[in-house]
């Protein structure tokens, strides 16, 4: 089975560089999410894979086939667009049959395959409906069925959930993932929603300013962010600045143990910690205790966000609400413990970008 390989892909629009020397391998049958803030180049990269944009330099290959200069209509990668791009002059069945009609497949065969695909996306009863008579979720399913009709080797989705409301989005994420696993097609999904990426993907590629910041399985990206941008973009994180001294981080007049710190003494660093990692329990370990004052409390469903003012700067702690959960008051003074192995240390010059 063939892997899709991008080698040193670069894309310039005049003087603006949209994608900068990207090297990626999309393993056969896996779902990869291209994740990043708006304008990071993820859609441009997807469009180059689809053949809708030509790379300025670099190579795109599927197995041994070089696809770099092959036009979109000869690649025939199924693609679902952000707006779904359904043909308004065709009904649901005709939309799904489009690629087959273009390929010269006989009408009975095309209709049979369309019926199978529509059953797959649970729209078998809607075959004769006009596109205008469908809801957002139904349109998305038609777009998926249409893109799969030509049995593509690579399935591309450009922010397919962005037009759906929150509840439907959650349901469709799961459905799409199940469908992709059932069909086993190499799939690339562009999204700026990290939750969507974490839910669906085998692998996540985090992009920023046309560069790949990190790629890997979702849990690796979350628990082992390579830099401050990834730590900030994937999930939530508290950040504070410090200086390395004797293998410890000196910040806010405190010396914190951060495990094996691979920085020279005197190096300025940025330290990140996920909100669920700090401890506020009475039986917290003795190391890395930081004095704090509660400034704000916010209930977020099953958890409670405790906003703290500390010598390191503001820190948010995600505290699980349970029967034995401690009660906190605004203005309460307490200690928060930052586990050394939960502190991510990055060079200070790495810029953080909010999503």
């Amino acid at each position, binding site marked *: 089975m063939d892997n899709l390989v991008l080698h040193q892909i670069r894309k310039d629009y005049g003087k603006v560089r949209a994608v900068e020397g990207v090297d990626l391998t999309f393993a056969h049958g896996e779902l990869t999410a291209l994740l990043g803030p708006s304008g990071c180049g993820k859609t441009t990269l997807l469009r180059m894979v689809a053949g809708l944009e030509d790379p300025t330099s670099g190579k795109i290959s599927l197995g041994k086939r070089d696809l770099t200069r092959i036009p*979109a*209509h000869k690649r*025939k990668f199924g693609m679902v667009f952000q707006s779904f*791009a359904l*043909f308004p002059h065709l009904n649901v069945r005709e939309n799904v049959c*489009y690629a087959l009609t273009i390929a010269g497949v006989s009408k009975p065969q095309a209709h049979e395959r369309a019926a199978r695909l529509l059953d797959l996306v649970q729209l078998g009863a809607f075959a004769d409906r006009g596109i205008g008579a469908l809801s957002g979720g139904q349109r998305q399913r038609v777009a998926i069925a*249409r*893109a799969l009709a030509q049995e593509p080797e690579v399935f591309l989705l450009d922010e397919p959930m962005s037009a759906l409301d929150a509840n439907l989005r959650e349901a469709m994420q799961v459905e799409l993932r199940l469908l992709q696993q059932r069909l086993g097609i190499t799939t690339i999904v562009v999204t700026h929603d990290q939750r969507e990426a974490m839910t669906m993907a085998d692998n996540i590629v985090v992009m920023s300013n046309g560069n790949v910041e990190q790629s890997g399985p979702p849990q690796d990206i979350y628990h082992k962010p390579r830099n401050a941008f990834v730590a900030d973009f994937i999930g939530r994180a508290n950040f504070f600045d410090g200086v390395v001294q004797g293998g410890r981080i000196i910040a806010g007049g405190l010396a914190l143990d951060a495990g094996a710190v691979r920085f020279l003494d005197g190096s300025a660093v940025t330290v990140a910690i996920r909100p669920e990692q700090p401890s506020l329990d009475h039986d917290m370990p003795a190391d890395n205790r930081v004095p704090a004052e509660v400034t704000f409390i916010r209930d977020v469903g099953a958890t409670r966000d405790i906003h703290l003012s500390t010598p390191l700067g503001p820190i948010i702690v995600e505290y699980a609400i349970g029967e034995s959960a401690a009660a906190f008051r605004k203005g309460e003074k307490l200690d928060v413990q930052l586990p050394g192995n939960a502190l991510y240390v990055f060079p200070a010059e790495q810029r953080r970008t909010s999503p």
Partner: protein
Amino acid sequence: MSSIEAPAPAGRALRVPAAAPRANMSRIALWAIVLGLCVMPFVLVIVISFGQKIEGAAWVFGFTPEHYLRFFVGASWPETTTTLYLNRLYYSIYYAVIASVIAVATAFPFTYFMTRMSRAAQSRWLVFLLATLSLSEVFIVMGWDILLSNRSGLPMLLRESGVTGWLKETGWFDVLREWGMANPRDVKFKTSVFATILTMSYLVWPYAVILLYPALSRLDQSTVEAARTMGASPWAVVRTVVLPTVRLPLIGTVFLLFVFLLGTYVSVTVFAEPAKQTLAISVYESVRGSTLNAPFGAAQSVILLITAGLCLWLGQVLVNRQGARG
């Protein structure tokens, strides 16, 4: 829902009856203007078309179908029958259909590519096209008259550049002669169906672009890209996505231009052969020429009007059918 209104103050209650007639008067005046300026001319033309012509003078009111009879079967019917004016109606429709279809067919790709240009470039083109609309038909026809004139225009250029000689050697000259586009010595455009239709198409081409522009600029480009990812070549995309998506504006534009071209006068006068002139010329001759016959001119106008109305109705039926299918 019902509501209880507070009684109006006495002073205000007194004003209401005064304001109502004033509003009614304005409405009546507005309707009178609309009827007087827009409907009355048509009513007058219809009335005159049934009037009686007085030899050597003008006409008097009456109710005679003789002008309509003359149009369809000739003045000396039932002794003899002539279809001269039906023939002119035929050429009116013939020129208008072909010229409007050519204008839309050529404006469509231009407009499509224009909508793919940058915003600034689109604005420049639109301003230019709108500016060309301010040119009168007389001015445009004069330009084409010079360009296609036998002595100084394209025929001379073809002759001097040797193209005419080459056409004669290859036998194409005889074909052009059969098409009425060459005299025994030279290629000629005046007078010819070709030059008439060419000028008429040119006349309405900017209108075609401006009428197609909104539909094509609204075309969702992602549908075009989706078709490409599904194996459609550029031509297949145009055939299966772009054209069907904008078919209603396309049909509408053809019909609008057709109706506009039914009444073209200057282009036909200059470029059409005398035997292939249109009803618009005939109407003008009847009401202005030496054979002054206002009722007959009016009858021809009414027939032209009915033809345009029928065509618009047919267009509407077609559009509705297409709309229902889409």
